[in-house]
């Protein structure tokens, strides 16, 4: 690991001004070029950044520590005092805070369940939601300095015809990573927005589906955050009382493991179980959380029962293109989609 300078900051604006590159930019070089060593990188929980630095995949000259920035570590109602228009999760809110939050558990169960299923207790107490969204992929080729893959500025994906048991089964023709954030699966289902501030203090909002970047758009990044920008909050919209959500994750291990597959479902049911709103999102399936549109089409405005859930789960996998070692993910996702639908609708 390289030597670096440590800078404390007290405001998002100052932090945004101190950064010179996103982690993705600081890790991308042309074949045969050395890694840049002059970057100034933001550090929140530091869980992923430390991993990347230990593997010498990133060699920043300066770390800007965000943990001292006040006001970014709270869960608050949006709309202030009056009727809530949703929930605001500060970027430094830890996964544990979310998993333990009564409001999140009550109104956005999928997110509480997704964060509860992430990492280990130790990690959940340190990892922040902002950092979790921005972490880099866990693909073992990407994580090894031996392989200069597409995502690091190289010219090939080593996983496509290599060891790909943990890789994508959708949208995997360019780069076969799966998105590393389990929380993101839930946030897509919950139609969350990302609040971003740039170094001039200007705020912008991006729906999470627009914030996340697929390899077809840019294979060298997983999100649209730019250098000099900082995530300040993740915003969850207000849903009607009939709204329900659920998340299921299956790792090889039950704790401290990445999902082989995870599914978030968000829906609104009429009293007769007719589906008014439906989102079915697959994590660990594609380079960004994968919206199972085929399943949603079957369920929208239909009665959600066991048979419909099974049909939707089956059709959700249409178009999957599993690789040599990850065909098992197809039946696995089918089972998890069905279970997530049953769980969200209260049928199971």
């Amino acid at each position, binding site marked *: 690991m390289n030597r670096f300078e440590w800078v404390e900051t007290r405001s998002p604006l100052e932090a945004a001004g101190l950064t010179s590159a996103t982690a993705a930019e600081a890790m991308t070089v042309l074949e045969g070029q050395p890694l840049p060593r002059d970057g100034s990188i933001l550090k929140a929980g530091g869980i992923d950044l430390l991993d990347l630095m230990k593997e010498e995949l990133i060699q920043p000259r300066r770390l800007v520590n965000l943990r001292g920035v006040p006001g970014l570590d709270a869960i608050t109602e949006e709309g202030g005092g009056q009727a809530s228009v949703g929930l605001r999760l500060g970027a430094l809110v830890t996964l544990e805070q979310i998993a333990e939050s009564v409001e999140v558990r009550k109104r956005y169960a999928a997110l509480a369940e997704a964060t509860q299923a992430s990492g280990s207790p130790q990690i959940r107490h340190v990892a922040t939601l902002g950092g979790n969204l921005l972490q880099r992929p866990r693909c073992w080729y990407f994580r090894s300095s031996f392989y200069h893959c597409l995502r690091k500025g190289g010219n090939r994906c080593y996983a496509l015809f290599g060891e790909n048991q943990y890789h994508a089964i959708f949208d995997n023709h360019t780069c076969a990573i799966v998105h590393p954030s389990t929380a993101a699966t839930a946030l897509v289902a919950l139609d969350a927005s990302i609040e971003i501030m740039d170094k001039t203090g200007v705020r912008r909002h991006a729906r999470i589906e627009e914030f996340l970047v697929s390899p077809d758009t840019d294979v060298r990044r997983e999100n649209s955050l730019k250098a000099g920008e900082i995530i300040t909050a993740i915003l969850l919209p207000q849903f009607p009382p009939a709204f329900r959500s659920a998340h299921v994750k299956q790792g090889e291990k039950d704790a401290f*493991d990445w999902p082989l597959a995870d599914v978030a479902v968000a829906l609104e049911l009429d009293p007769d179980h007719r589906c008014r709103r439906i989102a079915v999102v697959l994590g660990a399936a594609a380079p960004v959380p994968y919206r199972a549109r085929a399943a949603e089409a079957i369920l929208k405005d239909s009665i959600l029962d066991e048979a419909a859930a099974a049909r939707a789960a089956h059709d959700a996998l249409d178009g999957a293109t599993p690789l040599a070692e990850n065909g098992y993910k*197809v039946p696995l996702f089918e089972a998890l989609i069905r279970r997530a639908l049953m769980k969200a609708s209260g049928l199971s």
Partner: protein
Amino acid sequence: MASDSLHREKLPLGIAGIDLHTIERQLPAEEPPALAPNSALRVIGKAVSRLDARAKVTGTARFTADVKLPGMLEACILRSPYPHARVLSIDTTSAEHHPEVRAIHVISRNRGEAQSSGRRAAPGPPTLLYAGAAILAVAATSRNAAEEALKRVTVKYQTLPFVVDMEAARKPGAPLVFDGAVDQAETGGGGGAETGLRQTGNVRGPQTDSPFGGTRGDLDRGFRDAEIVVSGEYRTQVQTHCCLETHCIVADWRTEALTVYISTQDTVGLRDELARDFGLSRNRVRVISDFTGGGFGSKFGAGDYGHAAITLSRKAGAPVRLILDRAEEQVATGNRPMTWQRLRLGAKRDGTLTALSLLSYGSAGVALGAGVGTIAQAMYTCPNFAMQQYDVLMHTSPGCAMRAPGNVQGAFALEQLIDELAEKLKLDPLVLRDRIDASNVRRVERRIGAERFGWASRKAHAAGAHAVKTGFGVAQSFWPGLVQSRAACEVRLLRDGSVEVRSSVQDIGTGIRTVLAQVVAEELGLSAKEVSVRIGDTDFPPGPFSGGSMTTGSITPAARKAAYRVRRRLVAEAARQLGAEPETLVVRDGQIFSSVEPTRGHFFRDIFRHLNREEISAVAHRDADYDGFRMPFADGDGGYARENLGGVQFAEVSVDTETGIVRVRRIIAVHDCGRPINPLQIESQIHGGIVQGLSFALFENRVVDRHSGRMVNTNLEQYKIAGASEVPEIEVILIENYTACSATDAAGVGEPANIATAAAIANAVHDAIGVRITELPMTPSRILATLGNQQSPRLKQ
């Protein structure tokens, strides 16, 4: 006072609570009298907390990485990025100019690999045979500087064709790992291979014989006599040791002597190796291992890293510390070799075995010793047996001994096939085993375990439409009883009445430190806490290495003998001072009492008041078993005991047939280890064996990238090990099996605890889903594929 001539003793024999009786044996002079069964003892057989528990938990225990010497340098190693390459040149000029660099050492020979038979290696850097092979080491004033210096080294490689797939390596025309025949000597914990076997291409063997029967009888006739024949093919993966403490060393070369602090399973073996390799006499080498953070067979010898650190220390004239990181630990310190086995088994309708054949290919990468052990040839009675065990060489890191080498893999295969035979014969798996297993110990273990487990409630599998099925399974363990007679121990009673035990034996986490205290405390009428144990240092009498479940059985008789001699001399002196007959004196609670005055105790220190000596001490050695070894080791340093080690484990699993997830719900483990010395520690070690076996069964797997030949999961995030959530309810039942073979009758349990687990889980999975998983690990992918539930368009490049 006992006479120094031979004496006859009635020793306990048999299983406590079952068939315990006594047998009269003639014991050699100076042997202590018979030790009563545990129920009559005060310290031995009792659950004594580890003496070093507090030190370990609070972090005050000094492991090798904690050693800091004045002026100590930090070293690290440059490793091969290629699985097969010739080193054309190494330019260290720029590294040498680094201001903090103190020494650079180019490694001339990779240890752990098989060696070309009878041929001298060419001078210069060796050909690199696996990704991760050591090339060069640097010592600098900080770890950071050493790493920077490595980046300044320029190596020119000529990459060569390689093979990292065992099936591909067997084929004619596969890239050769060695261009001639190779051999590899055995290490303490196993590994290595029979010398002089035939070698064709990358395939070496077969091994057909062993001390456990090997090929025997008439196989063809056995199969002709069979009324039913079952067969199967089984595959097991590469498992890495994953010791919590990575390999590390602090080497301090001085003109007068070499001192080495190292994480090791064998201080004495290491001293002898270093003396030989560095041209020193043994009295000028000292090896110290206060604590060793885990050892499952990979911590024998000094390895590339140890030799490099010592050489750097000599060059730099300063102590050098070298700590391997986790990735190095995964690729360059050994592993459990992968195996493929084909078993064919013939039997009569009543279950009597008539023939068993075993064909195996295993690969320890660039090393030898990938056999499947002694399970098939020794567990069950079968008059006609034939085996052919082959090693396959390929360009992956060297395997080595790992907890019950071969037998874990062997049990996974044989115990599944025995269950299959039981199924065909419509026999309960336990009933079949009762008919074909001659071991009385395992018979008792099966009965006790089945009762405790509730085996009788075993349901028919695949009942009901629920996605999650549950199943029961059982499997057995066989491990040879092994004894090292190179096992010495000194007991000292000091003038102030305090007691110390000294031996070079190292505690690799099993608790031998506490066991020694218990044995000596029992003999001297003390509590374990009152005995100070000083071990892990070759300045003390030479203890055994820690491997093969041998430590306790080898060293405790020596400790008891030494303590007995100290007691005898103390009592003789006390008798002299008190004017009493020695036979009228007893030692208890740290005092000596006379039958004449039973309430008046004399403390040990009181005796020294009238004795012009600083201490009463004795050194004792292990020697052979009372009834002799079944067969001595070839090197004369010990032998095969007459009694082997058993163990039976029962598993309950659940299998989710939709997701392919297997979970182990509970394990009942019934084990024997001769006379148990410390049930608490034994239980702990069995827990460890079960968790490691479960982890092997379900998760662990070295993944090598087929195109680059490198292991891709070199961290403990991607190399998956069972965690707290995956650990089932475990119940250990220990039986006391008295064997009348030594002064303590103790034996080890490290390997037996690990042998049966994966096989028991596999049998339980079969019970749950009705199909057999014959390849490890049992991942969702494999379960779903076996259930015919997987869509896998196998893309070809």
